[in-house]
């Protein structure tokens, strides 16, 4: 083995890691961009190597449902940017979440979740847990005491979003993580809206971070994907998680936490859950996500600057009853924002039209540049009326808990010239005047 003239490692900055992490030049060809390894499977060197790969005694590629070098580069990059021990990618954000939950939970377990979540997540939790016979309690996430009050002996994890969709609640991560750890359970945080550029929940005590990579990570609205990051710090051998610490009947008796230490949860997530659920990310999508992440810090700065300008402008409009953006100084979340999101509160926020539901739909008909669609985090500005689209499976009570009224409009502010965005919304206001 040759010593390759190794320089001491340096703690590289976020912009540098956004471009480089996970993507060292390809050793066989010298390709500098991460190649798209569009292959289902990998030829083994010999039968002994094949056995070692399947036994997890050696890190080797077997089959792209479980691992792929292009996807791995994306995984390492997100894991690095979040300050985690590593990551596992999935075909979508919801696939990533369901895999996190499926790995940790057994029938009879219980989960406490924020009531101010993305509608698709609320539906997923309710539907999945009913099927799995897992108990579920939603809490108002704004007071840490609410989380504590909802704990039961069977509670196995807490689940929340850094910035709630679409209400813009900013999670007080540190005390909520403390409550989880006091109960010997992990805090799982969806960091999609903040991205690791604006907030790294692991720095504040979160144990597992999930993302819809479809949004700001990818940043261009081209691909569906998700990813799970593990801090590597949670003690899965504390007695509450035999699903991780005990010999696994699904992997010929392997005890993941003993064998892989802090890497045990991710190994199990990949070698069992991803293997069995089959929701793998495609290499091409991983390539596009990598391209997106290279400019993540630059885009987020512009997204945030445009969002602040638009929110401030909207606040001054007589047609607007309220603007709910944690980036505004009078937001009830300004204290949490200053602590957890010093570079900004993201670029997705809601405002309420005083005139209600009809006006909401008419407003959307009036925009030219904003696209009316069910996504966020694109470089292009997006608009939607949640009550009739993304959150329509929720009943009135759930809508209220998520901070959605009949006249609520959600914006995902893009990186265009902000004057053009204001021009566009002005025309929509003229239409409902």
């Amino acid at each position: 083995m040759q010593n390759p003239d190794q320089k001491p490692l340096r703690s590289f900055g976020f912009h540098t890691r956004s471009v480089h992490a996970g993507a060292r030049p390809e050793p066989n060809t010298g390709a500098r961009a991460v190649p798209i390894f569009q292959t289902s499977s990998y030829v083994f060197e010999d039968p002994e190597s094949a056995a070692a790969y399947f036994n997890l005694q050696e890190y080797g590629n077997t089959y792209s449902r479980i691992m792929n070098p292009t996807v791995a580069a994306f995984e390492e990059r997100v894991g690095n940017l979040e300050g985690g021990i590593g990551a596992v990618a999935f075909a979508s954000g919801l696939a990533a979440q369901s895999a996190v939950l499926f790995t940790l939970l057994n029938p009879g377990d219980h989960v406490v979740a924020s009531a101010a979540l993305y509608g698709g997540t609320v539906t997923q939790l309710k539907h999945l847990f009913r099927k799995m016979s897992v108990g579920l309690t939603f809490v108002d996430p704004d007071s840490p005491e609410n989380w504590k009050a909802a704990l039961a002996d069977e509670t196995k994890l807490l689940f929340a979003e850094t910035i709630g969709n679409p209400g813009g609640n900013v999670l007080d991560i540190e005390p909520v993580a403390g409550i989880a750890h006091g109960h010997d359970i992990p805090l799982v945080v969806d960091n999609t809206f903040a991205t690791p550029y604006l907030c790294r929940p692991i720095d504040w005590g979160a144990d597992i971070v999930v993302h819809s990579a479809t949004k700001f990570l990818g940043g261009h609205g081209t691909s569906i994907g998700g990813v799970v990051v593990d801090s590597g710090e949670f003690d899965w051998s504390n007695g509450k998680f035999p699903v991780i610490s005990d010999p696994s009947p699904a992997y010929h008796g392997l005890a993941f936490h003993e064998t892989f230490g802090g890497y045990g949860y991710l190994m199990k997530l990949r070698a069992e859950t991803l293997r069995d659920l089959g929701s793998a990310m495609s290499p091409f999508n991983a390539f596009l996500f990598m391209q997106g992440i290279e400019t993540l810090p630059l885009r987020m700065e512009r997204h945030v600057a445009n969002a602040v300008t638009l929110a401030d402008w909207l606040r001054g409009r007589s047609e607007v009853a309220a603007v709910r953006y944690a980036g505004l100084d009078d937001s009830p979340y300004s204290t949490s924002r200053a602590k957890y999101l010093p570079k900004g509160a993201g670029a997705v926020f809601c405002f309420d039209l005083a005139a209600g539901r009809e006006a909401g739909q008419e407003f959307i008909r009036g925009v030219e540049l904003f696209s009316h669609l069910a996504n966020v985090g694109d470089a292009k500005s997006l608009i939607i009326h949640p009550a009739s689209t993304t959150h329509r499976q929720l009943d009135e009570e759930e809508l209220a808990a998520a901070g959605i009224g009949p006249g609520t409009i959600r914006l995902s502010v893009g990186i265009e010239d902000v004057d053009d965005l204001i021009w566009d919304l002005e025309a929509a206001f003229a239409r409902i005047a």
Partner: protein
Amino acid sequence: MPVSREYQEPETIQRILHQARTVAIVGLSPNELRASNFVGFYADRHGYEVIPVNPREDEIMGFRSYPSLEDIPKTVDVVDVFRDPSAAINIARQAVAVGAGALWLQFGVISDQAAEIARAGGLDVVMDRCFKIEHARYIGRMHWLGFNTRVITGRRPAHLL
């Protein structure tokens, strides 16, 4: 118990991995599902000479097993420890006595006393790190599993082992 970063320095770890030839694994289990066996299998596969140290076995993975470090009739470059932290202190003394190059304490084998004894005896010391994972991080294929190797480089690497 927080582990001092001075026993987890990347330069020290890489130097050990590059220079070592013989690795005595104290507490190597013949059970293929145990972490020690994973590391022994991996080290052998990657060209290290694995020397089992386990008084309860005569042979592990096809290699002669010795009751203690002091019974090994050759130079030991790395003493890799899979034992209770309390046992690590005496192992550290033995490692110094046989003139080993490095004391490597695996995940959870945390003993400042053992580390101090080895360091005072002139050994490199690594604590609460896995020999296999660190090899895979810098020279091997750890990044194929999406783990954060923290390796950032624009240079073309040698073919990965």
